[in-house]
């Protein structure tokens, strides 16, 4: 099994998580705790790799139910911080169910869409319905960022799952139609963020402050950066949320364009590796899982880095493996572990050394795969 591992993916994840701990350390967040999260995430990664992802299909309904319970629970007994109710205390740890919901949605949609080879209108509507329920609970926390991630994951999985262009087109059209009514749907502070994104000087001390300071930090990093622990903006607290939402600004100030390009390259390679896993998956479920994780990481990378460099409006989304935070780190590592599990149990010749436990299912997977092709 070790031989079948996507070793490059392990290396990439490890490198990103190490850079994350370094940046969190530099941002004066609780880096030791982040190390604990990474270790916990690594354990879950190993467990997920060993665990046969195909068994997830059977537990998917239970996962979905659990996720919905937690999301409802957040609304009922959650902790409020920064104006949003996002946290649940689980065994003394603050847990952010909306983070976990990203991955749960990947599993649930994968299991649901894998039931059929083609996505008919019924399956299409069913998938949207499955995604809409948690999205509604998340957006009302309010947590616009995670909602966007859920939407992107759904769209990505529909796309990779083979949804017809007309179906994808209708989703996109609906989204575009929604945009004009967006200001009414957004909370006051979200509207403000949007306005300020369009014109940061509107409120240089309030909402625009974050944007301006993050841009200054990124820009002052220059080509080679100010050096680890030597970012002025970051070290002196001019970057807001410097360990979480704006962790990329902290990173880019200290490591410069060169470091940022290295980071982007690591992410890019990781994303391609994840897609590759989808390509070698032995069944449609595995392919969908890998595709979902891909979409999950890509949209978070885009939005987080995008808002840090003033390309996109501010939405509270962590940079996977880099931002401080237990739920996000563990979710990402668990997702990558599942992808690894897909890779390990990849498509292969029927007779070739069947895995002792899962040989039968592996055979089935390959057959399903053939049928699809």
């Amino acid at each position, binding site marked *: 099994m070790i031989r*079948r591992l996507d070793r490059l993916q392990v290396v990439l994840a490890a490198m990103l998580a190490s850079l994350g701990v370094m940046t969190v350390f530099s941002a004066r967040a609780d880096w030791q705790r982040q190390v604990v999260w990474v270790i916990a995430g690594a354990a879950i990664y190993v467990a997920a790799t060993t665990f046969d992802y195909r068994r997830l299909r059977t537990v998917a309904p239970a996962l979905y139910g659990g996720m919905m319970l937690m999301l409802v629970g957040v609304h009922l007994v959650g902790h409020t911080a920064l104006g949003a109710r996002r946290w649940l205390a689980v065994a003394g740890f603050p847990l952010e169910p909306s983070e976990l919901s990203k991955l749960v949605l990947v599993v649930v949609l994968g299991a649901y869409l894998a039931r059929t080879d083609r996505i008919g209108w019924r399956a299409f509507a069913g998938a949207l319905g499955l995604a809409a329920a948690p999205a509604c609970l998340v957006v009302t926390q309010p947590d616009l960022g995670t909602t966007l991630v859920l939407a992107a994951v759904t769209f990505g999985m529909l796309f990779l799952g*083979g949804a017809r262009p007309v179906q994808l087109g209708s989703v996109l059209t609906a989204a575009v139609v929604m945009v004009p009514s967006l200001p009414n749907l957004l909370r006051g502070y979200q509207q403000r963020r949007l306005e300020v994104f369009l014109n940061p000087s509107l409120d240089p001390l309030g909402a625009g*402050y974050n944007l301006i300071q993050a841009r200054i930090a990124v820009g002052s990093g220059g*080509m080679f950066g100010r050096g680890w622990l030597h970012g*002025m903006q970051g070290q002196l607290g001019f970057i807001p949320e410097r360990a979480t939402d704006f962790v990329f600004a902290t990173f880019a100030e200290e490591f410069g364009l060169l470091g940022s390009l290295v980071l982007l390259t690591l992410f890019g390679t990781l994303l391609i590796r994840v897609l590759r896993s989808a390509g070698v998956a032995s069944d449609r479920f595995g392919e969908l899982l890998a*595709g979902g994780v891909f979409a999950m990481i890509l949209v978070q990378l885009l939005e987080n880095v995008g808002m840090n460099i003033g390309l996109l409006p501010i939405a509270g989304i962590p940079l996977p493996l880099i931002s401080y935070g237990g739920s996000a780190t563990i979710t990402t590592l668990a997702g990558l572990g599942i992808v690894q599990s897909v890779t390990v149990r990849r498509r292969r010749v029927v007779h070739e050394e069947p895995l002792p436990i899962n040989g039968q299912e592996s055979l089935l997977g390959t057959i399903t795969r053939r049928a699809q092709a």
Partner: protein
Amino acid sequence: MSELPLQLGGVAPQPRWSLRLTAAATLAVLVIGLLAVKLAQLQVTDGSRLAAMAQANTIRHLVLEADRGIIYDRHGAPLVENSPVWSLVVVPAGLPPAARDRAEELVLLARLTGVAEEKLAAQLLNADPFAPATVKANLSQADELAINERLPELPGASIAQRSIRRYGEPMVFGHVLGYVGPIDSSHVKSLRAAGYQPDEMVGKVGVEAGLEELLRGTDGWADVEVDARGQVKRVLETQAAVPGHAVYLSLDAALQRATAASLAAGLARDHKTAGASVVIDPRTGEVLAMISLPAYDTNLFTRGISQADFSRLLNDPDKPLLNRAIAGQYAPGSTFKMVTATAGLQEGKITAETLLACPPYINVNGWIYHNWASYSLGRMNVARALATSCDTFFYQVASMVGDVTLARYARAYGFGTAKAIEMPGVTAGLVPDRIWKQLQCGVPDLNSDECRWSEGDTITFGIGQSYLLTTPLNQAVYVATLANGGHLLRPTLVHEVRDASGRVVQTQKAEVTSDVPASAGNIQSVREGMRQEINPPYHMNFWFRASGVPADGGGKTGTAQWGGSGLDLPTHAWFVFFAPYAQPEIALSVFVERGELSEVQAAPIGVDITKFYRDNLSSIRRQ
């Protein structure tokens, strides 16, 4: 299956890059490419500009204000202190980012300072977010403590300490010390070039202004790194401030107080409201006391005077803001007669023994000029003429000497020159002569009566009237010159200057400006007249006997008319005096504005001051 051989070795199978997977991969590459392009633009193209903004965010150049030098009296008693004042300073960027928290903090700040909340908000939100803004200056000690206690709840707010001048006895020392105040907008530019900060205090009046360069010191600076809340994290480079020099004035604090008290008591006795007195050491020119009444509280100015207070001072008919000792210009009256006497003797028009009549009046070209007495005082020599203050005697001498020569002697005694004393606003007074009078008129009408110097001008010049003007300071210098035998000294207010470490950097030395062009004998004859005036049988001696002060010295009273010419004009009262007679230690002038009788109103004040000096200081100063 074509992949079969590859899989046998456990090598990964060729992934099946379906169209959609390829599209997704392409999307990922595009997204990352877009981010990379934008990043490159930010970090390379805009990099230096944004780095400069980061620098401006975090590096602040602070000016470390130098302590202003302390001013002491000659014995080292401090006359002013630098006392701390606190102001509340807010760095807008340090305020909480959330609008609600910020509003809460503004409410709290408004409550603590008493400044209206809207005003606070307007001030802070329009300011440079990273520059400290003074929200309230001059916090009371109680406010300072209250706010200090709550600072942890007030991110962005801090308390800045400055020092301001506090004058110990402004009603006694105020006119001499003056005060400091904010720089006038008209001077901002020139002072900026000299390294002043726009909000710095600068000496405006008195020695605070006159000795500005000594007192000011050199500001230091520090380049510090501050965090987003304005807290100093690191000092990058610093240069300590050099405090200003300590100035030991020539004033004797005790004598200054006594002079103020004597003058105030004398004025009150005769229901007068304004006056001045200057006491000088005739050996060195050092000013031992300088008083101008009414005085005012100079402390009103150090925190920025209120409009009400300022207009009250400005509109007071007694002009408290005017330092009469240096800037009040009045006719000297009979106190001038020593100049006329010196001129007459030195020019050979009279000798010490020459006897002239002292009629009740003389007739010059049909104009009648009166003596103060309506009867003849008989023939007398110059000493007796001084002692009796016979006007008609000096009319004759002035006529013999002539206006131009008389003016020359007046100048030799320091009349008509603004003394180079260490404060601004010193006036010269006026020594007239025929050329001056013609210049007053301009070219067209040189021979009219207003323009042409008349014999009447000359003879009234001889008794200190005519157009002659002097100041209490000039009078003191004049009598000091008589006291020391004819050496005109530069008066000074500075005894010694020390730097911050206590090292003496400047010691005052007696500086003789010029000598009166008269023989020692002639000056002695004039002094003899002054000695006689305060001794029996003349009734001036009464004040000395009444006070128990030996009449050992020389004095001269003067009741000077002002406000035109004629018989019933208002007068000012003068008394000039030096003591002791043989080796004088003090020379003083006393001026009573609108005083009618110098012998009764001005002289007792001078005697009082002399008594204090003899009783308390003479022995000390002889050591």
